[in-house]
């Protein structure tokens, strides 16, 4: 069933499926990633449900005594959340991002290993931010580049550190993500309607 762009369904008569569909050719790597993503989401949802069931964390920010509707925080911003739960939630949450960052690259390309290595550093950055917050909560108000030290780690660390993988992806775009080889294969898919050409 050869097909070209000219034969493609027009906008007005677009249908969900042109053929009955084929059994899927599963990708074990992707399925493993999805299993990890599911596990991480279950951990995060479990933490939330346990907190709901225990009736924990009902306190919220309070109106500023002099300048409402401005708000003020409680116990330095922790709102009573246990530190261990913050570590688990933070690392699990970064884990979900790690999984989604590994999708879309050519199999076996070094960029996947690079993302893995970078993510280890990114998690460590989060841990350092948590430690830095302990010092801040204890009364240290060191200002670094315009913000308190832990906030600086958020602004210049967690926010900007992903530029490293972004630049790597941009640099390796054609080899790792989508290059002439993929374009040729895509053109062939369009021309053959998905057949092996």
């Amino acid at each position, binding site marked *: 069933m050869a097909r070209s762009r000219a034969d493609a369904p027009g906008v007005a008569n677009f249908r969900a499926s042109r053929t009955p569909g084929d059994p899927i050719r599963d990708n074990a790597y992707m399925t493993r990633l999805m299993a990890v993503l599911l596990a991480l989401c279950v951990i995060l949802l479990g933490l939330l449900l346990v907190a709901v069931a225990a009736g924990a964390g009902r306190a919220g920010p309070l109106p500023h005594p002099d300048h409402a509707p401005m708000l003020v925080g409680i116990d330095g911003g922790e709102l009573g959340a246990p530190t261990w739960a913050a570590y688990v939630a933070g690392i699990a*949450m970064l884990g979900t991002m790690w999984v989604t960052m590994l999708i879309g690259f050519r199999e076996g390309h070094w960029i996947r290993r690079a993302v893995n290595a970078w993510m280890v550093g990114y998690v460590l950055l989060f841990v350092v931010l948590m430690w830095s917050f302990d010092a801040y909560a204890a009364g240290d108000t060191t200002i670094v580049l315009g913000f308190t030290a832990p906030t600086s780690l958020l602004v210049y660390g967690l926010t900007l550190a992903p530029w490293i993988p972004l630049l790597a992806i941009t640099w390796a775009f054609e080899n790792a993500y989508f290059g002439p080889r993929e374009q040729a294969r895509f053109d062939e898919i369009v021309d053959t309607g998905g057949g092996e050409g």
Partner: protein
Amino acid sequence: MEANRALITLLAVIAYLALCVGVGLWSLRRTRSASDFFVAGRRLGMFVTAFAIFSSTMSGFGFVGGPGLMYSMGTSSIWILGTIVISNIIVLNLVAKRLRLVSELRECVSLPDVAAARYGSESVRASVAVVILLGVLGYLATQILAMSIVLQGVLADAGVIENPSLALCVAISCSVLIFYSVTGGIVASVYTDVIQGAIMVVASVFVFVTVLGTFDGGLAEISRIVAADDRAASGPWGTIGLMGGLAWFFVFGIGVAGQPHIITKFMMLRRMKELRYVIPVGVIAYSFAALLWIGIGFAMRALVISGAHPALATPDAASPTFLQTFTHPLLAGVVFAALLAAIMSTADAFLNIGTAAIMHDLPNAIRGRSLGNELAWARVITVLLAISAALVALYSGDLVALLGVFGWGTFAAGLVPVIAIGLNWKRANILAANVAVASSLLVNFGLRSGFGFGTVRLPYGVDHGAAALLVSLVLFLSISFLTKPDPIDRDIQRVMEL
């Protein structure tokens, strides 16, 4: 010049609105088919696509709501801005490539088209169209309300019209929005986005320089003043707290991959190889705009605490107040135009995808074909949708606010699994997709409305959208693992392997 501040602002706003009308007329000749109307004929270049994505993301929330959050909650909202780079990598990896390829392969003009092609299911198309329509109505109404409030303030300050009513301002702003959206469709939308984006970037830089000059010692002094008043507000979590900040990082980091007004822009890209620079360019622009968000909100908090300015009536007044009080009149004029631009760029994107859902996706799902003469219908429905949203904005009371906050979380919870994960993982099936969409609506609306019993407060300030996203991801992934995968068209499977 100071005496003419209000007049300068009004002139800048009028100039901007006239520019939008001009772009609408220019785009008219370039919009000859429904494909042109909805996906710009898939011929946008790298720079235009990058700025269209950036402008649609920033919206009025970035220029008004963001500084308002910094003012009221301290540093909490930096967790939203903190996702700027990582969320864009996630968008690139999860959706950009496959969305672009599937849309070219099947000549798709909307996300529900792509969902239908991926799952081979009209029910998935319908459920995605419904979630988009509900989210769009809320988002569009809040954007229309926001631009009308801005215009009302500008007209009142200039004294051109005595006590301009909100209805009048809705009529004026909607007329311009409808004009360029109807004449030029998405073509007009993305080219106004480029203008809007450029204004936003330049204005943000100048405003940030002004912020640095409000206190001797600049940003460091602002941080010291805020910390001395309330340590939480200057710490890494702000007043929302540790878990609340992390939840924002999660829902904005991953959730962006499900925002239809952002990701549909990838369907319009001319060539895949141009995708290489779209994300970096967009992220640079967003980073500049973030300066305004952080700078104005934090400076206003310090100014009020230090007694240099009286307390604000509402947090959202932080941005307009700072601009009117502390910036040069010319800069204030440009920024007010930029503010209107930010709001309109998001509104026109929603108008476009909402129109597609009504006249293309739902008819296709229900009766197997789209409406005839799609371009004409697209224009008619654009007008009707804008008027409906304007009426919701004017007369629905609290519902508009509820629908507005409902939008991001619903899109994230509904579309991240179905579109972003589904385009990459072949085991994802129709049942999982429909359950994920249904759960996104139920959990989001249930938590925010309490089904009539008031908003449900989650522990430690965790965002409702984060909870909804987690529930829908868990349901989507587990159902896909536990049930049989559906067959997928061969061409779609091969695209999923690229």
